[in-house]
C-alpha cells in the first residue's frame, strides 16, 4: 500500500485537508470523521479540501466529499474543493458526477481567497 495518510492542518481560520493520490474506501470514510472532528476541535471558518494529488475520483469518493461538505455546512463551516485535475474533471463529468452544492477552486490559493470572500473579516474598532 502506498501512503494513505490524510493531512489535516489548521492555517489561521481554515482547515486545510490534503487527500492522497489513490485513497482506499477506509481512507475516504476516515476523511469524513476526521474532518468533522477537526471542525469541532479547531473551530475553523472554512475547510479547503485539496484533491490536486487525486488521480481517480469514483462515485464513492465523490459522494463522500459532497456529503462531508454538506455536514460541514450544517456545523457552520464552508467547504471549498481545490485542485481537481483536468483528467479527473473530464472523467467525473462523463461518469455523471455532479457534486451539487460544493464550492470549487482551481488551486488552494484561490480556495483561500474564496473563503475570505465568503467570510469577510469584520473590522473591530
Amino acid at each position, binding site marked *: 500500500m502506498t501512503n494513505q495518510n490524510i493531512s489535516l492542518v489548521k492555517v489561521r481560520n481554515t482547515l486545510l485537508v490534503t487527500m492522497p493520490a489513490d485513497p*482506499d474506501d477506509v481512507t475516504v470514510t476516515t476523511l469524513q470523521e476526521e474532518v468533522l472532528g477537526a471542525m469541532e476541535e479547531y473551530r475553523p471558518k472554512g475547510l479547503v479540501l485539496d484533491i490536486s494529488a487525486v488521480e481517480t475520483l469514483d462515485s464513492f469518493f465523490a459522494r463522500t466529499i459532497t456529503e462531508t461538505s454538506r455536514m460541514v455546512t450544517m456545523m457552520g463551516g464552508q467547504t471549498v474543493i481545490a485542485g481537481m485535475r483536468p483528467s479527473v474533471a*473530464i472523467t*467525473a463529468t462523463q461518469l455523471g458526477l455532479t457534486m451539487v452544492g460544493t464550492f470549487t477552486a482551481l488551486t488552494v490559493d484561490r480556495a483561500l481567497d474564496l473563503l475570505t470572500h465568503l467570510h469577510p473579516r469584520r473590522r473591530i474598532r
Partner: protein
Amino acid sequence: MSDLARGNIPIKSENDIVAARRVVRDLATQLCFGVTDVTRVITAASELARNVFLYVGAGVMWWSILDRSGEVGLELTFEDHGAGIPDVEQAMTPGYSTSRGLGLGLPGVKRLMDEMEIHTEVGKGTTVRVRKWLRK
C-alpha cells in the same frame, strides 16, 4: 482478435477495489494511453469492481490486452455469480441504482469506455465486459 497478455484479480473486499484500480493503472500506462483515458479506464474499473463487491460480495476482474488487426486495446471483464440483473434495460437507465445509491451505475461507465457488453442471468450471475482502444 488475439490476446497479447491476460490475467485476473479476485474482488472480495474493499481493498481489492484499490488493487483492481492499481492493476488497471499499470496496464493502461504500459499501453501508453493518454492521461485522460488512463483516468477513464481506472474510474470505470473502480465503479465495476465496486458493483461486484456491493451487489454480490465476490467476483473476479479478468483483464486482457487485445490486438485486433493492429489495433491495441484493453479489455476488462467483471464476473460474478450473484443474483443477476433482472432488468438490464432499467439498469442502463441513467441515474438508476439499487444499492445504497452508490455507483452511478452502468450508463456512466459506458460513457467512459469505447465498448460495453453485459451478459446476465437471474440466479446465475453477471458478466460486464468493457474495452478501450488505443487512439493512434
